[in-house]
Structure formats: C-alpha cells, structure tokens
C-alpha cells in the first residue's frame, strides 16, 4: 500500500513537472528611452508576447511596433512612419536561449541571474545580442527583468541630420514580464 502511494506521489510530481516546462505571457512590458540633452523620448507597450521553454532554455519575444505609445503624438508618428516603417515591418522579434538555463529553477522561490543570447530583429534587420536577465520566483509567480542597449544605426534606421541631436544613437530598452505556466493541451 505504501509503495502504491509513493508511486502515485512520484507520478503526480512528474506530471506537474512536465506540464510546467513552458511559460508564456501576452502582456509583456517593453519600454525604451532615448536621452539627449535636447530631448527625452520614452515609449512603452504592454502587449509584447514571450514564450519560455525551460526544457531547452529557449526564449522568444515578439512585439508589435505600432503598439508603442509615446507622450507626444508627433513622436509616435515619426517613430512609425519615418524610423521603424512599421507598416512594412510590423513586428520586432527576439529569439534566443538562456545560457545557464540549468541554474534556473522556476519551481523554487528565489532570484536567478542569467545571461540570454540570441538574435534581435528590428526594422527587418537581424543582429546578435546578449543581455543579462533577472528571474524572480515568489509564491509561484515568475517575473523576469532585462535590459539592453542597441545602436539605432545597427538596424538600418536613418535619422535625418535635422533631428540628429534629439535622438540618441544608443537606445536603452527595458523588458519586464510576468510569466504564466502554459496549460498542456
């Protein structure tokens, strides 16, 4: 009898573990900042999606460029029409993996620092990027924070000389997500 219970408990543990291998969010937060003495530009979106596969350590992000909102209407218009050409390139994507995924145990409370490497696609141009990320697991809730700096010129975005002093060459991007376990179907 005891054995049966042990097997049963083990089996349940297995099922829970297997089903909790993939995590996702549909409401990831991405913001970016451009800081120059002339102008501060800030934009934010809350509808980025991300999928995290703990079995392989693979992580994916996707965001709709048009979902970024700016304080000033004109900035939003220039961002979409002149710089990001968001009708032609509606999405920005990141596909990569967590280098030290083995050290990350999402079923146990704690703070985990990891390094994520992969490819970032913006404005139709794909570049390799590396970033450090922090995962915090607390009471079953998984939040991830990361940030990276990118060069506007790397992604084939031309800034006219007229506004050159208003837009930073290097853009600071912040990423934040609360992941949910994906239900196995």
């Amino acid at each position, binding site marked *: 009898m005891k054995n049966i219970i042990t097997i049963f408990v083990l089996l349940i543990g297995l099922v829970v573990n297997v089903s909790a291998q993939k995590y996702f969010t549909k*409401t990831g937060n991405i913001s970016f900042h451009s800081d120059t003495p002339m102008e501060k530009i800030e934009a934010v*979106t*809350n509808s980025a999606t991300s999928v995290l596969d703990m079995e392989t350590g693979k992580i994916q992000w996707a965001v*709709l460029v048009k979902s970024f909102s700016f304080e*000033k209407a*004109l900035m939003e218009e220039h961002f979409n029409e002149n710089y990001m050409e968001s009708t032609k390139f*509606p999405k920005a994507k990141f596909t990569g993996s967590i280098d030290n995924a083995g050290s990350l145990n999402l079923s146990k409370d704690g703070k985990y620092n990891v390094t994520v490497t992969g490819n970032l696609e913006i404005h139709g141009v794909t570049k390799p990027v590396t970033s450090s990320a922090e995962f915090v697991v607390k009471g079953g809730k998984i939040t991830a924070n990361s940030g990276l700096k990118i060069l506007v010129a790397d992604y084939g975005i031309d800034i006219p000389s007229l506004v050159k002093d208003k837009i930073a060459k290097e853009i600071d991007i912040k990423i934040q997500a609360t992941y949910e376990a994906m239900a196995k179907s």
Partner: protein
Amino acid sequence: MKKYLLIIIALIVVLGGSTAYYMYNKKSASIEDLKTDVSVDASALVSAYESDEDAANTEYLEKVIEVSGKVDKSETKDGIQSIYLQTEGGMGTVLCQMEEEITAPVSGENIKIKGICTGYLMDVVLVKCKVVN
C-alpha cells in the same frame, strides 16, 4: 508702410511658431476623438489574421476598429487592463488593452470595444481601447 510690413511679418512668425509648438507638444489622441474605420466581429477579425496576416494587416492595421464579441476574461497587471474576447475555433483571441481601467466585465458578456489595431502575435492586439455602448 515698412512698419506694417514688419508687423505682418512678426504676426506670421508668432502664429507659425505657436502652431509649430502646439503641433510638437500635441498629446497622442484619445480613442474617443477618433472616428471608427471598420466594425467587425471578434471571430471574423481573428480568422482574417489566421488565414492571411498580410491581407488582414492591409485591412485592419493602424485602423480604428469597433470589435464586437463575448468577453473571455479581464486581467489587470501593473494598472493595465486587458480584456480578451472569445472567438470560435482557432487559438487566438482579441486582446484589448484599455485606455482606462473599467469595472471588469463578466465572462460571456456581450461587449463592443473600440481601439486601434496594432497587429497579430498570439492574438490580435488592440490598444487604447474603450467600451462603446
């Protein structure tokens, strides 16, 4: 004569300057002030995106859309409310991010939401949304 000319030039400069300043500082428009471009059913919107994303983008991207459907669920995270609309078949739903938080609608309730379509990821995403009666 010269005096008048100077006054006129000064006026033009002041007017032009203030218009430019106004345009430059104009806040992003609220959804209330925008005219609806397309009205569509939640299921039809999602299936359009699922079958041909490029074609759907031409039709809906950046447009002000009034979408009607049944509420799947409402979630508020970091002060941002997202209302998901049910669709028939398919995996995707319509994700509406509200401009201002409202009393969470009940699941299954019929609703009509106006927002700006920003495209399709796992769901069709609408931002700056507001419930219309």
